[in-house]
């Protein structure tokens, strides 16, 4: 299937649905090691994104236009750290996806730019129990799948599966970035809420592309 503007819009709508469905889970994860507002914040942000999409007279021309709308809306409505982090990820991704549709390399470019945005803003590296622990393996898996000649939808499927595994792998980690780092050793044994929500967002992208997870 073609990863065009319709795909991007479907991704964003599925992401919003997933965030709302998992709101309580994200709140509970964040309550354990953060300030407990991650589920609420993302719900508010993505609800606003969907309202903006609904208000459009006609769909944008380029994939990047959709991602830019997501970026600016999340940054203005989320309130917590995930706003500028995801906002920057979508903004950087928007800059490299000014195209009507994405092929395998386009998907890789989108994910790489998103990861770079999160790293630039959050200054986290893999292993610090953050969103980066979902995004970094997702990018690595996407690069490998694209090199092996997979179609765009499967590049995204590989990325989403790797993000899920990466999120689960945050459970034993001790946080050294973000609010959870104040807990030190006590942060171990909990799934990182940012890694979990990143897992949900990338799964939504893959499902919108028709990939199997």
């Amino acid at each position, binding site marked *: 299937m073609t990863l065009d503007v319709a795909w991007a819009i479907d991704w964003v709508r599925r992401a919003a649905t997933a965030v709302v469905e998992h709101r309580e889970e994200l709140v509970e994860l964040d309550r354990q090691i953060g300030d407990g*507002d991650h589920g609420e*914040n993302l719900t*508010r942000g993505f609800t606003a994104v969907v309202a903006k999409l609904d208000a459009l007279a006609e769909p944008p021309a380029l994939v990047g236009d959709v991602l830019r709308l997501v970026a*600016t809306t999340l*940054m*203005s*409505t*989320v*309130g*917590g*750290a995930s*706003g*500028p*982090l995801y*906002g*920057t990820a979508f*903004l950087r991704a928007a800059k490299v996806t000014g195209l009507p549709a994405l092929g395998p390399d386009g998907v890789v470019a989108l994910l790489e730019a998103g990861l770079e945005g999160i790293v630039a*803003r*959050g200054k986290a590296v893999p292993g610090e129990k953050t969103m980066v622990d979902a995004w970094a393996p997702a990018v690595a898996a996407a690069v490998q799948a694209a090199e092996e000649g997979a179609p765009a939808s499967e590049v995204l499927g590989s990325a989403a599966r790797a993000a899920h595994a990466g999120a689960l792998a945050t459970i034993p980690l001790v946080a050294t970035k*973000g*609010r959870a780092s104040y807990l030190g050793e006590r942060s171990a044994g909990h799934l990182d809420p940012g890694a979990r929500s990143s897992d949900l967002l990338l799964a939504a992208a893959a499902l919108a592309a028709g990939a199997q997870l």
Partner: protein
Amino acid sequence: MTREVAAVALVLVSHSRELAQGAAHVAEQMAPGVLVVPAGGTEDGLGTSFARVEEALERAADGGRSVVVLADLGSAVLTTEAVLEMADEELAARVRVADAPFVEGAVAAAVTAHGGGDLAGVLASAQQAGAVFAGSGQGPAPVDPEPAAGEPDVDGAVRGRAVLRNPLGLHARPAAVLARRLAAMDARVTINGVNGASVLELMKLGLVTGDAVEVVARGAAAGDAVALVVGEVEAGFGEV
């Protein structure tokens, strides 16, 4: 009454609307000539708002002013950086984000800006604010009592002494009055051994009514500086 507005303005970004406004009030009280714009909270409560920070920055930078931003926790810093990444380059070039304690940094920065400090000076003042507390329990960072080479030696120092009369002692407002006026003078002044141009060091002395204030000044305006301090202390900073 029209006031001259300092060339460097402050933006205070906090998770809490009340915290940003409160810190802005404290800073403004000590440096009335400085534009201090609070940007705290979101429409719904706690958190930081991209739109509010963007608006505050534009207001602070209006008319060509430079801006030092102080931010409290996590998302306040991240949101500020995201705003700067998306801002007009010409505006972003006039803005610096201080790595500084929120309230102390805002106070120190405001006093320096009020005294005519430039962007680098105001930023440095905010960032040095943390150091005042770094050695907590051991008093303020040592201040070199000897003049640097090329300046008048110890014999050239002008000294003065006065006893605090106002009920609250050397609290925030009088400390700010002394610090900003001394900063503008061509003199190096210590008060009870600390830098007289540092509002935070003066406040940390914790001088109360009846305590002695010992002034030592060096430089061209040393005599004026001592007279200023002694005069203000004896007048009770207008509070008696």
